């Protein structure tokens, strides 16, 4: 029998959601251990000494860090429906767009939401262009993965849909509207109502309360990200 699976995570973390949804789609039972990110546990520091971040997947005595690395590990280590496409070129495409989100979009995403003035204006323009590019990947399809939820859907969930709508509300900034991004909005509805996905989506009200309470902290943290 396979050794137990645990996730060190935080309920508010979209990256933790990525790890959870991957396990659920594969039908793998796991225990979620909630971390207090303002007071990181010894367990977290032991298993992710490099980045000290959630999520961390613990599979027996193995520790896997970085949400996208975790999703690929889950795909390879467990039986069940594949999360990544089968064809090598399609796999490369899915990986490309996931990296696009995590590496290229991340900074402008946070700056667009949580800063003001010229920096914000520039970031809003940039993130909107990037979201338009992302949208091309889901046009005419139910999910980025086609008929089923896959790797890129899981990746995108951290940036569009459930979490973004909360961020937009707390920050008072609108990035994605039905009119401008009809396919992304359609996808967001499909994704968040998916029977497996919704089992590990935190309650919107709880997320809203959490990020409202953390707003000042986030704003000052994002200020330090501002390009000099």
């Amino acid at each position, binding site marked *: 029998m396979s050794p137990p699976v645990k996730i060190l995570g935080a309920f508010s973390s979209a990256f933790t959601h990525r790890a959870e949804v991957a396990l659920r789609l594969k039908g793998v039972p796991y225990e979620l251990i909630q971390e207090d990110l303002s007071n990181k546990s010894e367990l977290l520091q032991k298993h992710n000494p490099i980045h000290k971040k959630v999520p961390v997947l613990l599979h027996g005595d193995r520790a896997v860090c970085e949400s996208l690395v975790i999703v690929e590990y889950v795909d390879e280590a467990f039986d069940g429906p594949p999360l990544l496409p089968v064809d090598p070129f399609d796999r*490369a495409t899915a990986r490309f767009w996931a990296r696009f989100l995590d590496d290229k979009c991340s900074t402008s995403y946070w700056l667009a939401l949580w800063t003001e003035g010229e920096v914000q204006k520039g970031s809003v323009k940039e993130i909107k262009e990037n979201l338009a590019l992302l949208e091309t990947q889901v046009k005419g399809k139910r999910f980025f993965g086609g008929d089923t939820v896959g790797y890129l859907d899981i990746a995108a969930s951290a940036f569009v849909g459930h979490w973004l709508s909360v961020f937009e509300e707390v920050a008072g900034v609108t990035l994605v509207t039905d009119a401008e991004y009809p396919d992304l909005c359609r996808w967001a509805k499909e994704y968040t109502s998916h029977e497996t996905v919704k089992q590990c989506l935190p309650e919107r009200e709880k997320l809203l309360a959490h990020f409202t309470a953390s707003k000042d902290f986030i704003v000052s943290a994002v200020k330090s990200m501002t390009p000099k």
Partner: protein
Amino acid sequence: MAAEKKGLQLLDFWVSPFGQRCRIAMAEKGLAYEYLEQDLGNKSELLLRSNPVHKKIPVLLHDGRPVCESLIILQYLDEAFPSTPALLPAGDPYARAQARFWADYVDKKVYDCGSRLWKLKGEPQAEARKEMVEILKTLEGALGEKPYFGGDTFGFVDVAFVPFTAWFLSYERYGEFSVAEVAPKLAAWAKRCGERESVAKNLHPPEKVYEFIGVLKKKYGVE
């Protein structure tokens, strides 16, 4: 639609460590390809068409279809050519996860910190130097006692990191430290990799890289 060019082509720039990853990978795999040097100051139609999102090299074209981002190209080569020597260890999900993690670490840390070393002065440069030493020690820790990051075989993380060994001399000169002193096992690994034909044939001499940085500095107006 015009017939797509068959086979492998690599859009690249001579000194790019990211491009060199792809060259070394294809050499290790015994894959023939057409090398197409790009003028990054005047980007070609082909490059802009193949990588419209980032407009960057390297880009691998396989029968005309583009694959972008060097680490993604490496994984593509493993998956599209499964009968060639694997870069990621086959059949071992945990080892593969470790490899992806460390290659991602190299991507997140090395080039950016290195650039700050030669671009900045004073306190920020001292910070970059401290960080670079830490990065090298961390990578040395990941290497441990193994001959390669991949264990006994030259693998994914080795290919991901080895092009930066040509930049060690420049880091040492700008940072005023010695890789052999702060990370002796890493220095030994670099030498070991340098003895592989795929690496020897695809890396430029460290002095050439140093010279290139000098040219870049003038271009950016950095003294």
